[in-house]
């Protein structure tokens, strides 16, 4: 098992180096630069433009800029945002808990509903439940997030007034950030109603962000279950006279979970992409929205630092999923 883990870790090194190149190159490939955007309609004289580029170090050859970036990176320095002048790592860490909180809630919702729905649809194949749930999954999968979010806001916050429109907690509550996770901090604050307010604010964004992963997980679970249910060992288990529940819940489900766990792991990337839109529409102060703003401002250090950190998180999650995979399916460890 240790060799398996070490082998996986070793793979990460070249991947991470590749990511540094992509993260560094990405913003620089985009046309326009931060100085021009800052100057706006007013324009800027060539002399002043040159002066500002020099001041920011962007007059250097690109390879030297990359090596500087790499050198500072190994000292744990991601640089300062060109816009806010704050350290990129600090900004990321300030905003990241909000994204993680939302992503965890979304993936939990997607898993807790998606897997049972998939199993049920597979077991009752062709039933009205199968038809409706898989139809709904298809719609959910193809729903434009922005439109879906706005629709929910108009219905639940506007017309029915059940949920707040946006933000993480009512503005009435104001307490210090301890963990950055609003659900925990609101409990720690001891203020009456703070936790309830935080939960209420989480509902709609969680639903919106969970929609696509939920659809994917449900469909994946259904098809994996159908495949496994046709296997000989399932028939044998049934022939042995094992209770139906045990056959489905243990023999079939455990084997069907292998591709499903992989799918859930892959959804982390999808969640990050979905977070950008979800956070924008729900004014959720997370890294998705921050990345979009940084890209529009061509804030090179923020974009490259942010991309790198997000990639690191996704890689870490995938590593964990790989390890879990090994746990579920012992054969994989030896491959």
């Amino acid at each position: 098992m240790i060799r398996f883990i070490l082998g996986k870790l070793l793979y990460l090194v070249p991947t991470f180096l590749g990511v540094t190149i992509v993260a560094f190159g990405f913003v620089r490939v985009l046309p326009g630069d931060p100085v021009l955007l800052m100057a706006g309609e007013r324009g800027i004289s060539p002399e002043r433009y040159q002066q500002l580029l020099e001041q920011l170090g962007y007059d250097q050859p690109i390879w030297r800029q990359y090596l500087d970036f790499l050198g500072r990176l190994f000292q744990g320095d991601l640089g300062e945002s060109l816009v806010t002048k704050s350290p990129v790592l600090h900004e990321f860490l300030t905003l990241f808990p909000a994204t993680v909180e939302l992503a965890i809630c979304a993936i939990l919702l997607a898993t807790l509903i998606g897997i049972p729905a998939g199993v049920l649809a597979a077991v009752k194949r062709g039933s009205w439940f199968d038809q409706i749930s898989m139809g709904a999954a298809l719609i959910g999968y193809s729903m434009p997030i922005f439109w879906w979010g706005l629709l929910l806001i108009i219905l639940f916050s506007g017309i029915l007034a059940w949920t707040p429109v946006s933000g993480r907690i009512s503005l009435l509550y104001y307490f210090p950030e301890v963990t950055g996770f609003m659900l925990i901090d609101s409990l720690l604050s001891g203020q009456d109603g703070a936790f309830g307010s935080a939960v209420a604010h989480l509902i709609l964004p969680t639903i919106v962000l969970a929609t696509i992963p939920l659809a994917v997980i449900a469909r994946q679970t259904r098809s994996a279950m159908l495949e496994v249910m046709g296997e000989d060992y399932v028939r044998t288990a049934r022939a042995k006279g094992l209770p139906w529940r045990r056959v489905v819940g243990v023999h079939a489900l455990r084997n069907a979970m292998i591709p499903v766990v992989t799918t859930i792991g892959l959804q982390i990337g999808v969640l990050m992409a979905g977070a950008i839109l979800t956070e924008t529409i729900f004014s959720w102060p997370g890294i998705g929205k921050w990345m979009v703003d940084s890209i529009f401002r061509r804030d090179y250090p923020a974009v490259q630092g942010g991309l790198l950190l997000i990639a690191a998180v996704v890689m870490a999650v995938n590593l964990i999923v790989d390890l879990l995979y090994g746990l579920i399916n012992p054969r994989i460890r030896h491959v």
Partner: protein
Amino acid sequence: MTTYSKLLMSAALCLAAVGAEAKTLVYCSEGSPEGFDPAPYTAGTTFDASSRPVYNRLVEFEKGTTNVIPGLAESWEVSEDGLQYTFHLRPGVTFHTTEWFTPTRELNADDVIFSFERQRDEANPWHQYTAGISYEYFNSMDMGSLIENIEKVDDLTVRFHLTRPEAPFLANLAMDFASIMSKEYADQLEAEGRMADLNQQPVGTGPFQFVAYQQDAVIRYHSNPTYWNGQQPIDDLVFAITTDPAVRLQKLQAGECQIMPYPAPADIEAIRADGNLTLMEQPGLNVAYMAYNTQMPPFDNPQVRRALNMAINKQAIIDAVFQGTGEVAKNPIPPTMWSYNDEVQDDPYDPDAARKMLEEAGVSDLSMKVWAMPVQRPYMPNARRTAELIQEDFAKVGVDVEIVSYEWGEYLERSSATDRDGAVILGWTGDNGDPDNFLGVLLSCAGVGEANRAQWCNEEFTDLINQAKTTSDQDGRAELYRQAQVIFKQEAPWATIAHSTVFMPMSNKVQGYIMSPLGSHQFDGVDIAE
């Protein structure tokens, strides 16, 4: 400061607000501020959150107008030659007492000198107090070469010596970059080795004092209990950052905020129909235009430019693109600006005459590029659609148009080039309400290769602008600008397209809000009905 002390601080402030019923105004702002030191930035969103609530300037814009009135300076004198401005500071003004700073003295000349020297003098330790900082507004208003030095006459008197007479100087001092900072606070930050906090924990003299900022989410202010211009009707001011205009409106309708900027044009009718909301509107201090490159044939011929202008159906653009939220522009400055020349006649929309004029000018089978900006701006909701309408109009007079667009930064750069081809759609929003800020920046010879996208250098026009700039009497200046507008119309370096309308929806409970023609959003004097 720790988060706990921030909390204690805000708790203390809330208690000070007497009783449990603190009056709070929530503003659904459109974006995050870049920082809280206004000088290094140029974005209105940043100024709304920093310079407007927290700081004051020597002189201020009178609310709802572009008139310059006393601010931290009670009065001032200008020398005969226009080279010396002497300001008499208001006595008894104090900076905010916050958890991170307690002032020991009142505002004095040192604060004023510090506020400008840090932007002007590269050797000043505060010039580069954090990496990569620069003072683009100060630079682009040419303040560096304009101010020769700043002299402390006594504690409450400060004198600016200028290198040349410059009439818009006073209006420049009312701009956000000229906000007055506390030298004492800066000294304290320097001594404690945390200079960068000047941009995170602002201390000013303004109507509201900064309490806390949760990045990309909420900014909290409390009313300044010792404000020199009177106590605020509300206790707390909160900015709830909400980037999407449709979501802002939902929040406003749900009562999660009481006032918001920049509604989507498509929502205007729904807002008008909502009995709980009030919609304030005002002509924006802006212009949308299409600039020909007057250095490249055939656009070097004014007759060709005028002919093309006559081929554009501007009302159709107002109806289709601005959806009625704008008016046709005939001058390069908006009608709300002093010196606007209403006697100027706009070129009529007359395709037949336009075609004839083009023939007379010897232009046939003309193919040209029209540049459409890739972004929405306050003066232009949809440049691509505008370009398409112009393309149709020009086709009617036999001119073939290819629409081009680039990424925004690149668009701005390429459109500045003197050898650029075709006509560029762009616009401008006024900085300080002075006509020079439009006519001088966008159309004088000095702007060629930069903000003057028509690359138009007309000596007669530029002479008038320069003369107006050094004339101190406003009536005299207005007359010179009026003449300049006549020349502009004859020479037609631009097709002037539109002046857009700015909207501000708010709850019916909001009282005393005044829209700024300069587009800033400020909340001093605003109250909420119970």
